């Protein structure tokens, strides 16, 4: 465990943030446990750690959204522990949210004006416009100034949040999992943005799972584990540390950062020679769909055969989750057909599609927090009689033993990884013919992703037909037979996974540069 000598002496102004004995308790659960952290001024500092480590809680405590149970926080040497969030913002603490929360019914420019007018209500209109435009240009949003925030895709929303925080002239910028849900090209853009803001005067704290961002932006970092500071130090050293790897990085990211030379063996599934003669289970033709005014899917055709595992890839805003929602019924298609198992389900509401056999493991898990683990599972076993329900329950408990241990616990008490296991288990309880796994690795540490994908591999081997929507391209291609790439609401490319995996040009074209983020 690498440590750092506590800086004693009067040079507390060396650090933009110092926490002393910081603790946050929720009833019996200790989210942040006696953390002493010193974040140096003027640098980009990273905070990493597995799920449930307390990273977002820490951000909430520093930004003022949460009140500490005990301990103090010093900002530039001043104790701000009791200061409410708005006051901290006025003193230059800006933050972004894990899931962006712009003011959805305001334009991009108005979002920035909120920050401006609350601090300087009497600023002249011209000055205001200048400052807003300057920040918009700086964050690459100049063209979208009059767009309603609701219509922005994910990366734009993240930029908007950064821009909004920049309007505060922050001395400290907290970026909370800003890389989540972005693909490679978008991550590069984000890293550029961070570099442009890191001017030596503004301190930036990056809380991240996407290791690439941490590696390329942060000089130093701290590792959190179960609410306590586990390690800290120079980035490369910390990431190479064996113990850190054990708790967090899993085997997948040992030593080198290129995702090609991974140590774990790709599962050896060969394409079944009889595959082409298998029945088509799901056929989608010319499907269009969207939310409100926005058209997201512009004409999707897809065929999935029984027993196939198909990966759905693509940039953000391309429509992957919309496609999942349209297939499962949460979103009604505006055109085209969806035929499942010979039946036209295009106009069927989602609960009836489940009964037909389409199961959707939704993005963000969406487990029922006030129901127990077992109730969460049982609720999905509609109409099955007792013995069948029991059998399925047992199968899922075998697949995920952790769920069996926690079966009487309420959903709220599960960690992120356990919630994902529950969500996967729940999607299997109805004995579905097709399961759509929507971004199951979002926000999870690599070691947890390993476990989940092992489970998925077992399901695949047992013959389950699945659609896998994934940001982590490598994992998806390792698991799937075929991959289809969505671009601007249509499939631009589809082919065997092995081809996609090895064809660098294809990947760069459609998964790298292919996405402008609109």
């Amino acid at each position, binding site marked *: 465990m690498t440590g750092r000598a506590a800086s004693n002496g009067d040079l507390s102004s060396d650090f933009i943030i110092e926490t002393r004995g910081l603790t946050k308790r929720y009833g019996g659960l200790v989210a942040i446990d006696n953390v002493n952290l010193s974040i140096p001024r003027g640098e980009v500092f990273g905070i990493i750690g597995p799920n449930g480590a307390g990273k977002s809680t820490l951000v909430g405590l520093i930004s003022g959204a949460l009140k500490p149970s005990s301990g103090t926080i010093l900002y530039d040497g001043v104790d701000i522990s009791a200061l409410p969030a708005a006051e901290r913002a006025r003193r230059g603490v800006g933050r972004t949210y894990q899931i962006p929360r712009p003011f959805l019914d305001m334009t991009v420019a108005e979002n920035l004006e909120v920050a401006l007018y609350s601090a300087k209500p009497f600023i002249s209109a011209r000055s205001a416009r200048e400052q807003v435009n300057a920040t918009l240009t700086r964050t690459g949003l100049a063209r979208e100034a009059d767009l309603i925030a609701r219509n922005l895709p994910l990366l734009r929303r993240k930029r908007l949040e950064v821009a909004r925080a920049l309007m505060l002239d922050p001395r400290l910028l907290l970026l909370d999992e800003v890389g989540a849900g972005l693909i490679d090209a978008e991550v590069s853009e984000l890293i550029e943005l961070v570099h442009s803001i890191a001017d030596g005067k503004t301190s930036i704290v990056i809380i991240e799972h996407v290791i690439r961002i941490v590696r390329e932006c942060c000089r130093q970092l701290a590792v959190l584990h179960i609410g306590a500071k586990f390690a800290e130090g120079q980035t490369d050293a910390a990431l190479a540390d064996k113990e850190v790897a054990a708790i967090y990085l899993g085997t997948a990211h040992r030593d080198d950062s290129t995702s090609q030379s991974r140590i774990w063996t790709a599962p050896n599934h060969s394409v079944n020679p009889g595959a082409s003669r298998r029945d088509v289970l799901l056929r989608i033709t010319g499907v269009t769909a969207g939310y409100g005014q926005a058209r997201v899917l512009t004409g999707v055709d897809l065929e999935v055969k029984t027993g196939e595992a198909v990966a759905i890839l693509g940039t953000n805003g391309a429509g992957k989750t919309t496609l999942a929602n349209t297939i499962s019924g949460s979103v009604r298609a505006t055109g085209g057909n969806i035929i499942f198992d010979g039946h036209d389900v295009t106009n069927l509401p*989602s609960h009836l599609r*489940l009964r037909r056999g389409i199961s959707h493991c939704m993005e963000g898990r*969406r487990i029922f927090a006030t129901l127990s683990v077992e109730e969460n599972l049982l609720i999905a076993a509609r109409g099955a009689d007792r013995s069948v329900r029991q059998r399925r329950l047992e199968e899922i408990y075998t697949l995920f033993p952790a769920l069996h241990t926690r079966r009487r616990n309420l959903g709220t008490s599960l960690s992120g990884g356990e919630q994902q296991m529950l969500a996967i288990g729940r999607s299997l309880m109805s004995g579905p013919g097709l399961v759509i796994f929507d971004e199951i690795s979002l926000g999870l540490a690599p070691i947890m992703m390993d476990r989940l994908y092992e489970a998925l591999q077992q399901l695949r081997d047992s013959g389950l037909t699945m659609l896998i929507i994934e940001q982590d391209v490598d994992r998806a291609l390792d698991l799937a037979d075929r991959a289809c790439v969505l671009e601007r609401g249509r499939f631009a490319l589809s082919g065997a996974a092995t081809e996609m995996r090895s064809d660098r040009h294809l990947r760069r074209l459609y998964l790298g540069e292919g996405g402008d983020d609109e």
Partner: protein
Amino acid sequence: MVSLEAIANSVASGFLLGGILALTALGLSIVLGVMRLVNLAHGVFLIAGAYVGFFLLQATGVDPIIALVPIGVVIGAAALPVQRFLLEPLTKFGPEAPMMTTFGIAIVLENLFVLYFSADTRSIERDYATVPLLLGPVSVPLVYVFGFVISVGVILIVHAIVSWTSFGRDLRASAVDPGAAAAVGVDVRRVHALTFALGAACAAAGGTLIGIIFSFTPASGANYLLTDFAIVVLGGMGNIFGTLVGGILLGVLQSLAGVTLGDGYRDLVGLVLFLAVLAVRPQGLFRGHAA
């Protein structure tokens, strides 16, 4: 100077009455907890139950106290289409629209009651309504005991339904995350419709009991609406046992206030307690994991 005996009687009656009030509040609590709907028509559903009981007695001589379940079912069934056609289509417009619709329903029904049943004060006359029961040193009206037992019984049944049946599971899931519930096969629209009907049925059953114990007019519903809101907030929205405890607490406090300060202060004390709880602990006095 109020005698100790009077206080003891008052606490006991308040306790029992509170249990009955809890039944009247139960429907409101469930609907609020599951559908996030402020049902301003709750009071008229209550009074509707009282009227049905009244006319049932008049027409057939059957004591409404044994016909509580059918009365509840009738009102619940009548409430189903209201939810289906008037409230369900409004869910996407935010919480004010359905709330105002329930208000519209409330004033329409109240007006119709006045039109057809006249504004006269009514009461379901039963002999046992005035008979006192002596429990040791304390004297309470016998009908309060009946009402209390019945109310607690119904509350227990509803709790059992919500906690242990698959419908109850669907109900709780719909309360937490309707989108995810639909994705696992729950017919959320049906759940909402049935929840609303259940709420109306409970209100009507409670209303019948109220009609036996007290008198009522078409306008009485509004008073009970407010009291019931107080109970729901005290006990926690959607928390079934919390509603029972909240009701009893309110009943006792109101009774004591009436006996010590004067009748006019009964409702005031209730409201002040309500406001205090809202200010200090709006999620209710009890943390429950019901709907």
